[in-house]
């Protein structure tokens, strides 16, 4: 009989996580993003879509914290409202990626061996599709939208999750409690949902926080190219695109949205790193980290 190390849920992973300043930074930024998004539903200092040509290009002041843009919108209000799009894209992509990842994981562990090999080859092919290209293909058929960004990031990162979790799933499905489950008469699907998936959940959660980082970058890139958020929606990527022509005269205005994006991406990345170090230090960073 092969001896496999039983998977014991590590005690005190939360304590390990809290002691890691990088992970805490990630958690704080994530909470801040959620708070900004929720706050912007009920309150922003000014109407983020209200244009007022008379008050364009105000410098940062107590009235306009980050100044106003080329059409007189309050930049702080626009960024606050834009955090909603960012959060939507991040959470939406993570959900799609989770579904895609579980499907690939299930197909890669429950099916016949020859089918598993096909899935493995298919994953290697799908990984070669850059997220941005998937999104642009979808945009050329359906037109650009936030949904396109979510689906594209979700699919491409879900494939990645499927690949990264494959060895984990294989390891767990060889362990004794899964064998015990089979002996007790559990079907393959129930055994997967009851025993295997909960035990690979740490891998999934870590991967999904990195997925959110990729999603934020993808939203920026696609909205910049004009295939993400629609014109009327305040979004961080769109703001960058709109202010681009003025960087020579008002360079400070593009600093804020870029800073917001960078901090958010860094936050999700560090959150993932912190969770990985706290739950399973053996796991590596995903290979696909470009958006």
């Amino acid at each position, binding site marked *: 009989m092969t001896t496999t190390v039983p998977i014991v849920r590590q005690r005190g992973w939360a304590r390990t996580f809290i002691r890691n300043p990088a992970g805490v930074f990630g958690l704080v930024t994530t909470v801040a993003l959620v708070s900004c998004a929720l706050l912007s539903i009920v309150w922003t200092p000014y109407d983020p879509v209200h244009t007022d040509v008379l008050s364009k290009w105000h410098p940062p002041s107590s009235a306009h914290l980050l100044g106003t843009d080329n059409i007189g919108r309050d930049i702080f209000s626009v960024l606050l409202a834009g955090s909603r799009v960012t959060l939507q894209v991040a959470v939406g992509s993570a959900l799609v990626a989770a579904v895609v990842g579980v499907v690939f994981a299930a197909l890669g562990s429950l099916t016949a061996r020859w089918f598993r090999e096909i899935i493995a*080859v*298919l994953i*290697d*092919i*799908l990984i*070669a*599709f*850059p*997220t*941005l*290209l998937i999104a*642009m*293909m*979808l*945009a*050329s*058929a*359906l*037109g650009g939208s936030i949904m396109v960004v979510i689906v594209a990031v979700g699919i491409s990162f879900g494939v990645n999750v499927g690949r990264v979790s494959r060895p984990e799933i294989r390891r767990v499905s060889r362990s004794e409690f899964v064998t015990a489950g089979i002996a007790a008469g559990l079907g393959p699907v129930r055994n997967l949902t009851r025993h295997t998936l909960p035990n690979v959940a740490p891998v999934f959660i870590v991967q999904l926080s990195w997925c959110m*980082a990729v999603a934020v*970058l993808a939203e*920026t*890139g696609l909205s*910049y*190219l*004009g*295939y993400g958020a629609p014109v009327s929606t305040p979004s961080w*990527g769109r703001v*960058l695109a709109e202010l*681009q022509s003025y*960087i*020579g005269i008002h*360079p400070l205005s*593009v*600093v804020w*949205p*870029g800073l917001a*994006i*960078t*901090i958010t*991406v*860094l936050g999700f*990345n*560090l959150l993932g790193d912190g969770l990985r170090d706290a739950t399973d230090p053996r796991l590596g*960073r995903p*290979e*696909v*980290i*470009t*958006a």
Partner: protein
Amino acid sequence: MIRFVITRLALLLLGLLVASALIFATLRILPGDVAQVIAGTDSTPEQVEAIRSSMGFDQPLLTQYIDWISGIVTGDLGHSMLTGASVTSQLVEKAQVTFPLTVMSLAIALIIAVPLGILSALKRRTFTGSAMSMVSQAIAAVPVVWAGMLLVVVFAVGLGWFPPQGFPRDGWDEPARALYALILPALTIGVVEGAVLLRFIRSAALEALGQDYVRTAAAKGLTRTRALITHGMPNVALTVVSVLALQIAGLLVGAVIIEQLFTLPGIGRMLVTDVGNRDLEKVQGDVLVLTGLVLVLGTVVDIVARLIDPRQREAAA
């Protein structure tokens, strides 16, 4: 080894075939009537139908796919639905910007990442080491378009060293000017991708530092730096090679955005225009070539990694 190469090439061929089928299926099955787009909004149904049949859209999908694939084998990627221009010749023309841009970006990324990655591993317990690690983590989180804007503000608007955007009209007829126009865009992609690469190199160097043979070399009187460089480098090189394929995917994506930012007439900018025009046949060709490039380079990298790694070589024998 030869068996490995043949298997890998067969997988590549399969990969290209599957990728082409996926691209075709995505673009043709999704709703969105190209014929309607070409005909315009005030067209009659008969006009739309005429365009559809002239484009071959009334044929079964499988026939259309086989037509497309058999064209590709002879180097014909189809034609633009709007201008009728050959997709192949347009890609070749635009590659004259994108290819040098990608190569320059990669060179800059390597120049930044290799020495700094090794340095930050050597100094990992010092302030410099942690600072370098944090800075690279932060730069890797910067959206490439914003990095480009900041570099334009500093080096083009502020210092006036480089043009803020554009590419000489005569292209490579004046190589110096063309090269000059590509420096700032390449620097943008190179710095951001370099920060990503740096983290891989740092962890590879850290792993090498923990190896017995590096420790032995250090015990025999070499400095840690020398021991790492003379004995640990093969391992670091292997990491660089194996992440290179994925880096190239990142570089190409970066090029799509950066060509837009700097208005460079490359493949990325053309793709953005084609997507805007809903020129499906052209998008199909563009995406296949870019994805195919990633698959081909992935295969090359796999084979090179196998060649330079004696352990893998022996495992294959």
